């Protein structure tokens, strides 16, 4: 297993160097968005409007945090299930989104869009919200504040730990790794 450091933004050549199973530390700006925010972004796109952040080269984190205690940038901040965003993802990838961070399997349409756009799908460890919050240095709500935990946050992360689960070469770790450890009877 290879450990790597990656700065955001990164280009497609760097994305192509990532392979499933790589353990990657991300540093830079990422944006949180989950179900309700995706729905609003889709509606904005349908109306021909701009998204609340520059989608080209962006990294979206499927996450809705707990409220921050006083003096902390954010509360617990682990990934939510990515498949609920599958419906919206191919279009965002085609618009230039570079990567997403979540947990769980994706649809074939998302995996194809990852390959087509030289993008990458990272998993963060589900249920590790306390550890992951330590890699988030600042958090600011930049859109849809009425959605509470589902608002879009701009997050500054330093060495945020993720694992490549789908890469630009068509690899899908959730399928291949499980196959490797499955007991055949």
């Amino acid at each position, binding site marked *: 297993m290879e450990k790597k450091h990656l700065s955001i933004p990164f280009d497609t050549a760097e994305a192509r160097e990532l392979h499933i199973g790589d353990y990657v530390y991300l540093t830079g700006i990422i944006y949180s968005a989950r179900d309700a925010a995706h729905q609003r972004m889709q509606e904005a796109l349908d109306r021909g409007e701009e998204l609340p952040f520059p989608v080209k080269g962006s990294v979206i984190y499927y996450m*809705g945090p707990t409220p921050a205690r006083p003096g902390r940038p954010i509360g617990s901040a682990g990934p939510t299930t990515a498949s609920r965003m599958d419906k919206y993802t191919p279009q965002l990838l085609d618009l230039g989104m570079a990567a997403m961070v979540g*947990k769980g399997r994706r649809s074939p349409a998302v995996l194809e869009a990852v390959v087509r756009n030289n993008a990458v799908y990272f998993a963060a460890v589900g249920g590790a919200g306390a550890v992951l919050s330590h890699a988030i240095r600042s958090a600011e709500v930049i859109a849809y504040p009425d959605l509470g935990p589902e608002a879009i946050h701009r997050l500054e992360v330093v060495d945020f730990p993720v694992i490549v689960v789908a890469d630009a070469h068509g690899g899908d770790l959730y399928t291949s*790794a499980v196959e490797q450890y499955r007991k055949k009877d």
Partner: protein
Amino acid sequence: MREVDVSQITAAIRDMCIESTHTLSPDMEAAFTKTVEEEGSPLGKLVMDQLQENLRLARAEQIPICQDTGMAVIFLRLGQEVHLTGGNLAAAVDEGVRQGYNQGYLRKSVVGDPIERVNTGDNTPAVLHCEIVPGDQVEITVAPKGFGSENMSRIYMLKPADGLEGVKNAILSAVAEAGPNACPPMVVGVGIGGTFEKCALMAKHALTRDLREKSPIPYVRELEQEMLEKINGLGIGPGGLGGTTTAMAVNIETYPTHIAGLPVAVNICCHVNRHARRVL
């Protein structure tokens, strides 16, 4: 008749909402330690190390173990000799949830209507299950349930002819389908028998049983062990990234059922299997 003021129930629920979302029970912590030692995949081990560090940080710095602090499921066993005073029980329970989720900086994840979907802002209402039992005590279990794993839970109305094999297949297929979405290593709660709703409730309740305790019924105890081994043979592993630990325990409850049926419910919980219990 013993009098219990419902404000005591409010206070206990408030405290348990906060406690259960920051600290796992000793049986869960023991299961974690065992998994870290036994996991056979290098990436799986790394995931388990991260999860153990997560538990340590959550406790030390009072950051919730997981950002999905769940919908508050509450089991209340009310002694029939208890006279509740001071107000409405359901309101007192919701007040405990409201205070716990606000004072504990927990995420409010409840919408007031399943279709209109406006957040209630305080994580109420709770899902309250009351049972009247002999005695003069009030036993309260608070089990905040995350929905990554709740969404992967299943109910199967099997036929009597499907038998034990049918039950095994049902459990295995629910877990296989859940895979990485349910944040493995999981705890699997199973209800067998009863009616449609009874078996679902048993599956939920089974998740609150101490993982070190086994079923008192010999064939069920064997089934728990066999299913745990089969589930771990699926290869899903910690985080769903492949490995030898997919579940930490399978807890099964059973109940008599109808001559025509064999209901099976599989309630899947992630490794953040939260529950706190108190007796008033």
